[in-house]
């Protein structure tokens, strides 16, 4: 016999909160919005499952990529080399502007940085495959020193799918429930809201320190990677 599912839809999560609190259907719409807010908070600040990879095509006219619409925070930009992700270096000194959608070299727009593009004893930093800077206002990432036509973007997403079924890991249910109850009572019953705030913070700790910790096997492998195999004599 199979166990119950490891995920719960956001819709069922809202229904479960209403069922548990013995509340009527008239709270459903408001609670659904609060659950979306709570899940986004959790993904952004607490849970590890909030990361998404996406392949983004470089816009040649501006040598940049646009944020996916669900992007909350950019984590990393990388290019593929021999099956591995090679991260680009973040460099905030890149000239971030464009001149009416094109690059004007007189202003340094689109200019490659004068950095050594080779791997040797002189190379500093972890990667010289290119550089990027983030323009959160325009929701673009500006690239330099790379000829890649596509790059990988690692980002935190809102996590809520538009017009589809959003699956939430079941272990996140208590934190989202506490968030919904905390926010729904914040203005009408501050004392009750304060109690839910305590529960919310407890659940945050559990998600942060327990749910996100690597397994013992993963930690063991991490140590093994530090050692060099000795020849058997």
């Amino acid at each position, binding site marked *: 016999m199979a166990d119950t599912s490891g995920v719960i839809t*956001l*819709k069922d999560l809202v*229904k479960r909160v209403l069922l548990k609190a*013995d509340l*009527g*259907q*008239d709270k*459903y*719409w*408001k609670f*659904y*919005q609060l659950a*979306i*807010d709570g899940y986004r908070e959790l993904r952004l600040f607490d849970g590890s499952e909030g990361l998404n990879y996406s392949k983004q095509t470089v816009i040649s006219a501006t040598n940049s990529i646009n944020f996916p619409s669900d992007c909350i925070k950019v984590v990393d930009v990388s290019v593929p080399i021999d099956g591995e992700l090679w991260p680009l270096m973040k460099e905030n000194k890149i000239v971030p502007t464009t001149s009416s959608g094109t690059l004007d070299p007189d202003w340094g727009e689109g200019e490659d940085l004068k950095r050594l593009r080779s791997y040797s004893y002189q190379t500093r930093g972890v990667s010289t495959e290119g550089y990027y800077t983030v323009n959160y206002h325009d929701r673009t990432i500006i690239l330099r020193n790379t000829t890649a036509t596509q790059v990988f973007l690692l980002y935190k997403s*809102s996590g*809520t*799918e*538009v*017009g*589809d079924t*959003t699956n939430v890991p079941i272990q996140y249910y208590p934190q989202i429930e506490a968030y919904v109850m905390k926010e729904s009572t914040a203005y009408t019953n501050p004392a009750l809201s304060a109690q839910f705030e305590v529960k919310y913070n407890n659940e945050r700790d559990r998600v942060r320190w327990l749910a996100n910790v690597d397994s013992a096997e993963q930690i063991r492998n991490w140590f093994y990677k530090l050692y060099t195999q000795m020849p058997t004599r």
Partner: protein
Amino acid sequence: MTVKEYVDTIKNTLDREDSTSQFHPNLIRLHCDFTWNQILHDAFRKDLSYLDFYAKEYNSITPTLNSTTNRYEALFPAPIVQLPNRSEGVRNLSTNQGTGLEFVPISEQEWRYTDGMEVDTVETTTKTYFVRTDRAIFANNFVAADAAAGVSMRLVIPFSEFDDDDELPVPSGQGENFINMVLARLRSIPPVDLSNKNN
């Protein structure tokens, strides 16, 4: 007890001497109507979910499109009791065979506030409605096919909507209270002035 038995009991508890017929059964029914709403409100205001038992089911109601507002509306087949939440006297609204959470009540204010919010774009299956005195107006996700399929409603109806031989589902422990409240209302009516001032 049936509705008629309640009315008769109240009538028989009043003073026998009623030469002016001021306690006509229709007047008693009218006061029962006021009292019934009050009894339901007092008994269930803290937890309206228990009202499901007191709701009457109406099936195969066909919503129609209001050409002015471009929204679908379903007229109530009977008046509803006003209750302190967004669904008022509509305990449940679903498709005729529906079992899940297909329709949810919403206030018009919430509907306007959430227009364009995430919930408006993410929740594309559950339909919302807001309640007016005589109809339910469908807000989100309601389409022509839903209207063609028809809807089912469970309504909490006023005393006057029960037939004489209908069993009146008086909330547990409220039977005596109901009768006493009606009697108190009736006894507070001043007697008819029979003195002949012309003599």
